[in-house]
Each structure stands twice: as structure tokens, then as C-alpha cells.
């Protein structure tokens, strides 16, 4: 019984150690290259809201709403995931692209 248990644990242990060990080393190598980018603006994700992006990119939220053609009213707590369903026919790429463009085009001098 103990021998069988030892063999099962050995198998599981080897699989987990090799699989996750390899992945962890790979990720560690990536981390070494990103240390300089810690203060970079966040990458766009579908869970983000317009007020969150406004704060993290230091851009007025009204500008962002206007730039992506979404009304500001009642949408402050809505994620991009929700907004794309209601304003972009479910096209995630399209809304992410629109937000990306709006952020890139932002010029505080123009406002």
C-alpha cells in the first residue's frame, strides 16, 4: 500500500515539477526583462472601465467616452467587455482599438 502510494506520488511529483519548473523558468526569464517597464501604462483588458483607464493613463474620462463614441451616462461602472456588447456589436478588438487610438491621440493642449 505504502509502495503504491510512493509510486503514485513520485509520478505526480515528477510531472508537476518538470511541467511547472520549465514554465516558471521561462516566466522568470521574461520578468528579468520587464523590470524597467513597471511604471508603463497598463495594457488594455476587457475588465477595465473607462474611469479606471482615465486614472491610470491620466486622461479625462469624458474625452475617452467621446473618443470611443460611448455615452458617459450610466457607463462609469461598466467594463469594456460590457461596452463592446452594447456599443460595438460584441466586437472586442474594435473597442480595444478605439480606446487604444483615443489614448494615443490624446493631446492635453488641444482640450
Amino acid at each position, binding site marked *: 500500500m505504502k509502495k503504491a502510494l510512493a509510486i503514485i506520488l513520485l509520478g505526480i511529483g515528477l510531472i508537476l515539477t518538470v511541467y511547472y519548473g520549465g514554465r*516558471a523558468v521561462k*516566466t522568470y526569464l*521574461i520578468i528579468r526583462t520587464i523590470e524597467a517597464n513597471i511604471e508603463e501604462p497598463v495594457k488594455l*483588458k476587457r*475588465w477595465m472601465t473607462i474611469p479606471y483607464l482615465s486614472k491610470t493613463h491620466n486622461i479625462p474620462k469624458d474625452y475617452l467616452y467621446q473618443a470611443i463614441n460611448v455615452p458617459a451616462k450610466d457607463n462609469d461602472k461598466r467594463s469594456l467587455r460590457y461596452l463592446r456588447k452594447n456599443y460595438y456589436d460584441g466586437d472586442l478588438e474594435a473597442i480595444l482599438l478605439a480606446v487604444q487610438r483615443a489614448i494615443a491621440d490624446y493631446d492635453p493642449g488641444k482640450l
Partner: protein
Amino acid sequence: MDFNVSDYFLTGMVNYGAGILALALLIGGMGIPLPGTLMVIVAGAFIRQGIIDLAPTLALGLMAVVIGDSISYAMGHYAKGWVERKFGDNENFHSARATFKKRGGIAIYLTRFLITPLAIPTNLIAGSTGYPYRRFLAYDLAGEATWLLLFGGLGYAFGSQWEVIYQLISESSGLILGVVALLGALYFWQRQNSVI
């Protein structure tokens, strides 16, 4: 299917702050699989970005996760009768219970932040083997505080790059579980040989 629990909790944390983190940690502590470590890392990053505040996040998070763990301890406690009926005659069960009573504290502490996949089973074992609740609570508090400070601190330190650090932690957790399994194999192998 376009459903991702993490997305809902992350949007919730952006909108409602530490309360959502606390809710996720409470549910996770009760044994419902939620990405608790992810939430803690993101909370650290959000603190750096000025989205949420440190003190309430830490206080609410710690309180919630300890309550969650206590609930899973209680589940084990109420299953004690069933466990006794099922394994009461088994010598190995009594030996395991005695060992847990003696050295369970370190298991409780380490499974809070180092071998997190084993946290819930440890809570259930602690409750069902009659491990004293006060001692459980003390080790649990220490372990969860370490977890929150360590991973929240990593999220804070890595800021907008938190996703990569989360990936590394998830992989390290799998790696540590693998090492624990190998140590377990070694332990049982030695015991088998010592019997012979």
C-alpha cells in the same frame, strides 16, 4: 462561452474597492475555487495606482480570508462524527491525527501562502481531527497576513506588470506542489523499506 469570474471580480474591485476583494477572499476561504492570489496581487497593483487604499484593503482582506478559513475549519469540525465512524478503527488515521495535532501548525502556516492548493484540505483536516481552534486561528492569521503582505507587495512592486508576476506565482505553486509530492514519495518509500 464568454464568462470569466476573474473579470467580474477585477471590474468589481475597480468600482467598489476592497469590499469586493474581501468577498472574493471569503468565498475562496470557504473552498469555492476563486483566484484569490490573483486578486491579492492585483490589489497590490491597484494600491500603487491609487485605485484603492492600503489600510482598509489589508484589514478587510485579512478579516475576510480568516473568516472563510474558519468556515472551512467548521465544516471539517462538523464532519468529525462521520470521519470518526469511517476511519475511527484505522490505526493510520489515529497516527495521522496525532501527528497533525503535534505539527499541524506549520502545515497551516505554510499552506496559507506557499502551498496554497492544500489550504482548504488542511482546514478540513484541522477541523475534523479536533485541532484546537485557537491554535488554528493563530497560525491561520500569521499565514494569511504573510500571504497578503507578500503577494500584495509583489503586485505593488510590479505595478502594471502584475500579470507576469501572477503567472510566475501560479507556476511556482505548481512546482512547489510537485516538490511536496516528491518528498511525500520519499517519505512513504523510506517507511516501506523500514517496515521490510
